[in-house]
């Protein structure tokens, strides 16, 4: 079975083709174009959607060529239906619906966050993990029970990705800023005390962001180091509590911030203490990509009929814990 997945929830427009045989999936192509705002600025939804409009036909064509597949070979098309930025989501949906309608191909709306998890499981081989989803759009700890992902902790305000991006932009970097911050942080060991806010098993980063900005005026490297150490320690504490509570023997980290090596280092220590295996999604697939949407669509097509075109909505705030997973 061959599927096309379309991702357009935020700054990335991506198309991917995966061939599914039994439980295995082979990524034949994954092409992306990323909207890059000017240094110091965030994503403007309409500007990002215009980027997607301009690039979607090129990305689709490159994706099909790279996979050596024609549109007529596709068995299903899936697209990210949410959560995400409305104007961006609508571009991906229009591309998917146009192809589905014109070529009569079954269409599947997919939850973007579940896409991160399912692709992570495919690529790491994790079986029943506690999942840490950390990106620009999410900061969630999740465990699967009775056909749904259950939240064991999440952010009460901004996400971990937003914390890093907003702090990086305040120093003049262009989003995404995680890599710049990680590089600067690796050159310091001077910890400056910052607010540490874990409430129950939820985290709050907005106070940490406000408190770190003035420190960067004195020393950028100390500020980056202290910010990472504090935020990642908060995450590690909640992961440790969730591992202890759920007795899971696997931890999998997915989402754009999964690329951060210091976070992985701290979480590996947590896993060691709890005798849990540690999995991290490969760097290339940590961020938003068509593969996550394609693979989830292929999994859904095993147990569900395709959606009718008139029901292919986009939902900006579609929570993953509201999705019933039957595959």
């Amino acid at each position: 079975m061959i599927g096309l997945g379309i991702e357009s929830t935020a700054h990335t427009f991506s198309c991917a083709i995966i061939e599914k045989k039994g439980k295995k999936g082979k990524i034949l192509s994954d092409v992306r174009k990323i909207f890059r705002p000017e240094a110091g600025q965030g994503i403007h939804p309409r500007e990002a959607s215009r980027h997607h409009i301009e690039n979607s036909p090129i990305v689709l064509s490159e994706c099909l060529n790279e996979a050596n597949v024609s549109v007529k070979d596709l068995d299903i098309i899936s697209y990210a239906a949410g959560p995400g930025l409305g104007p961006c989501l609508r571009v991906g949906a229009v591309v998917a619906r146009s192809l589905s309608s014109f070529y009569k191909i079954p269409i599947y709306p997919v939850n973007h966050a579940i896409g991160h998890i399912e692709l992570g499981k495919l690529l790491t081989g994790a079986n029943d993990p506690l999942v840490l989803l950390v990106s620009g759009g999410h900061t969630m700890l999740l465990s699967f029970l009775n056909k749904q992902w259950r939240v064991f902790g999440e952010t009460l305000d901004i996400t971990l990705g937003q914390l890093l991006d907003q702090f990086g932009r305040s120093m003049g970097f262009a989003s995404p800023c995680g890599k710049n911050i990680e590089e600067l942080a690796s050159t310091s060991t001077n910890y400056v005390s910052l607010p540490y806010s874990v409430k129950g098993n939820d985290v709050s980063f907005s106070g940490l962001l406000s408190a770190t900005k003035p420190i960067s005026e004195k020393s950028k490297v100390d500020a980056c180091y202290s910010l990472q150490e504090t935020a990642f320690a908060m995450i590690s504490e909640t992961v440790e509590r969730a591992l202890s509570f759920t007795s899971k023997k696997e931890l999998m980290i997915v989402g754009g911030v999964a690329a951060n090596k210091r976070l992985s280092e701290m979480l590996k220590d947590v896993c060691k203490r709890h005798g849990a295996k540690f999995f991290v999604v490969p760097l290339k697939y940590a961020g938003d990509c068509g593969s996550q949407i394609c693979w989830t669509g292929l999994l859904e097509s095993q147990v569900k009929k395709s959606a009718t075109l008139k029901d292919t909505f986009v939902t900006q705030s579609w929570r993953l814990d509201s999705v019933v997973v039957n595959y």
Partner: protein
Amino acid sequence: MSLTCQVQVILNNISKKKAKAVKKALEPDNVNFPKGLSLYVENIDSKLIFNFESKENMKQLVGTVDEVLEHIQVALKVIE
């Protein structure tokens, strides 16, 4: 005095199959419009006609026409 503005966009010489695909691709997003703003799409012979209407808020009308035109452009490009 209230101001009502109507905008009609017509795609000429479009095949029935393409017109149907574009219409179906755009229709699911034509929901939850702000009060006073509406869009009605019709397919007549080889024409696809988009009828926009706005009462009072012209900025919303311009923004909607802009986005819909972009979506039409994408839909046509990807099915080609």
